[in-house]
């Protein structure tokens, strides 16, 4: 039997990941260089439409590896399904896109089969009958050539952008699609997927805020941040902080203002208990109006403040919040 390259494309909730086209281009290039056959597989709960999409490309065959237990995605189910399929199919080389999902299950799959993965490759070479993969080391300073010494199947993943998806050749005719039903025994899937986590897209975009209430070390304790939050809420503004506060984990780092945080230019900036080290000031000096509250009359924040309140923020902020509320209620 001729050696086979199997491209495992990636789908999630019935949608094909665009990196898959790049992997098909890679597979086609390896097939052209080695003379091996190229086939593709799609793994999931209902893969028919994606399999048809892939079948239009120049591949010998497309497998739809199917099981209701593959939906939603879990690394246990994917590793189990592919192990079963690959053991029966015995391809020489399995290639996949280096996506988060693949990074999640492919180490488990390869280990379960006693094989290794050459991951995050940026290219390949076929020299003297030997297939060699190129991957970056030292943050791209060096390119290392790596090859397999183990038995097939070999696993390799390609970095996003290593090949061009739009260069994937279409086939002369539509490739046949074979549906492969895999059995995943009860108890195999130990993962319980939760709701898909969307990377908090900067939960607060402080650069767009018109009013910012920022707290510094003078707030003393984490529980006191509530005092500032109430003022921010009353004003309809956002809460921010200087570095020591975020450093202590009292507020998330995306609320940090300064040279190691965000640079902001709101209409109003209230600095509560912030001494005003230059590291903080560079992040907020563009504010139109700066009101600073600090116990220490010598605090450098007062040099750039438009309104300086020398005093204890615990005495000043709560009444201020009340006044703001009253004024807003009155208007």
């Amino acid at each position: 039997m001729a050696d086979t390259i199997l491209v495992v494309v990636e789908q999630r909730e019935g949608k094909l990941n665009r990196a898959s086209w790049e992997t098909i281009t890679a597979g086609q290039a390896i097939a052209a260089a080695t003379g091996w056959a190229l086939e593709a597989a799609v793994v999931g709960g209902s893969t028919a439409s994606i399999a048809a999409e892939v079948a239009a490309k120049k591949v010998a065959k497309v497998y739809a590896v199917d099981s209701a237990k593959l939906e939603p995605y879990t690394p246990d189910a994917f590793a189990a399904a592919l192990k079963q399929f690959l053991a029966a199919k015995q391809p020489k080389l399995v290639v996949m896109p280096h996506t988060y999902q693949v990074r999640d299950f492919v180490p488990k799959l390869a280990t379960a089969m006693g094989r290794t993965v050459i991951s995050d490759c940026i290219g390949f070479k076929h020299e003297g009958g030997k297939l060699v993969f190129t991957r970056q080391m030292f943050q791209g300073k060096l390119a290392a050539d790596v090859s397999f010494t183990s038995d097939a199947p070999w696993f390799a993943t390609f970095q996003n952008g290593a090949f061009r998806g739009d260069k994937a050749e279409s086939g002369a005719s539509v490739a046949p699609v074979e549906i492969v039903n895999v059995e995943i025994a009860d108890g195999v899937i130990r993962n319980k997927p939760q709701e898909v986590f969307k990377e908090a897209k900067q939960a607060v975009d402080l650069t767009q805020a018109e009013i910012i209430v920022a707290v510094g070390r003078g707030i003393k304790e984490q529980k006191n941040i509530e005092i500032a939050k109430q003022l921010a809420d009353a004003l309809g503004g956002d809460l921010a902080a200087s570095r020591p506060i975020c450093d202590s984990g009292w507020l998330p780092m995306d609320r940090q203002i300064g040279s190691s945080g965000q640079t902001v230019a709101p209409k109003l900036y209230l600095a509560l208990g912030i001494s005003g080290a230059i590291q903080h000031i560079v992040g907020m000096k563009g504010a139109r109006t700066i009101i600073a509250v600090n116990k220490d009359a010598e605090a450098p924040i007062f040099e750039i403040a438009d309104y300086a309140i020398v005093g204890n923020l615990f005495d000043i902020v709560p009444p201020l919040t009340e006044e703001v509320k009253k004024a807003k209620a009155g208007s």
Partner: protein
Amino acid sequence: MLIFRKPLEGIERPQMPADVVIVGGGPAGMACALRLAQLVDAHNAAYPENQLSKENIYVLEKAREIGQHCLSGALLDPRAIRELLPDFEKDAPLDAKVTKEAVYFLTEKSKFKFPITPPFLRDHGNYVISLNRFVKWLGGKVEETGITVFTGFAGSELLFDGDRVTGVRTDDKGIDKEGHQKSNFEPGYDLNAKVVILAEGPRGSLTKQLISKFDLAKNANPQTYGVGVKELWEVPAGRIAAGEVIYTMGWPLTTHEYGGAWIYGSKGDGSNNVVSLGFVTGLDYADPRLDPQRVLQEFKRHPFVTKLLEGGKMIRYGAKSMPYGGWWAIPPVAGNGWMILGDSAGFLNSARLKGIHLAIKSGMLAAETAFEALIKDDSSAATLGEFQKKVESSWIKEELWKVRNLHQGFERGMFAGMFHTALQMITGGRGLRNRYPAKAGYENMRKLAELPADGGAEAHLLGPAKGDGKLTFDKLTDLYHSGTKHEEDQPSHLVIRDTNICNTRCVKEFGSPCQNFCPANVYEMVDDASQPNGKRISLNPSNCVHCKTCDIADPYQIITWVPPEGGGGPNYDGM
């Protein structure tokens, strides 16, 4: 809870073979790499049938860019660079030739000029340079040879096989504050090298690991250090000429402390001059409240200096420690698989305040030895030991031998020091005996209870500088001008063996000197009612400027500086 950086255990790391790994891309490391390339090229030209490759010679540099962590005064004695690159004057970034020099003794309000400049402070023929730009230039030459400089990669530990150094492990990247792997985690590499060359600068962390593992310092004097705190200023033209060199002794230090200042005039853009000024404070002072950054601020308040800087602008800030101990404090510099260069070994002439030329020379000699090792394919102590002999028969020893007892003479204060210096000058460095003993600087630190509560004669040097924002600056303002930056979410690279000592003993006995000697506000004692003294140590590792003062000066010797995630650190553009 503080979590400290250490290489992860139980993970698989990429292995990479190497011929030579040079840890640290400063003047010593770069000179070593360049000399090695020259030797390999000459060999390949002479023996076309027996080619040596430069491909597996690597330089590790923790800074994001070459030269970014290099700081010095700096005056360059061109002796070594001329040997390395005879044509260096054509394209090296040399700011000015030294045209004028003077040494002053300062009292609080006035100054006395030394009638003659002592021979070791004569600088004609030397150049004012920015070490940052100089190393950038030198590193460019190294890269042209085909040797790879891994910027952004630090050496995190040495690899051993019995009594042999077999390689270097680079830093793990993508570890969060708690020590967990982040999504961008990348394990450090194991570079398995035939020859490992340590050129980490003063108090190198791998050098420290090596010295303690093989007890290399047992026959040497303890190394003693100073910390140089530097500011770069732009001042109106005419105040100081490019190439003008001024040294001062005395004020603001008292006769109890060792140290002095430099002021070097450099080129500006026509309407102004750039001035490099800094103060070196010996890290063997007695009062734990003394603050070297404050010493520099007090120095600037002397009328002589104020007049020079008036109307000018501070543009950069930084700090670096320097090894003072001299010839007797240098440990063995070569062994089975390893060599030590430059400041890491202690090749610094403390009388002349110069080490760059010695760093370069030591790098060149080590390159010659490494080349021999590659030719013979033997990097055992028998081959690399040649480096030790080369140093001892070179002008490195000749120069350091004359001042071998200099700093030790100052252990009993300035007047004793001047007496010994004079005597040593007459006797070729010998003084009263061939080898003066020394003790480590931190042993001189005294407990608060033994010191006057008001600071006595040192009162003006104690505690944080206030700063007027024009001439003088508080530490955070100065620090901002170092441009230092680190990934915030990583374990602390200031490794404290036992923070209980900080919270219970040190705060009481010494009043937490880390807050004072650190020129970058890394250490802070914060209120904590649950602690017996109401204070708890808190660290701001991302402020660090990599000067290693904490590792050196801490009286309990419980702080170890290790490199943070590669790429982090100061930005010493033009320093």
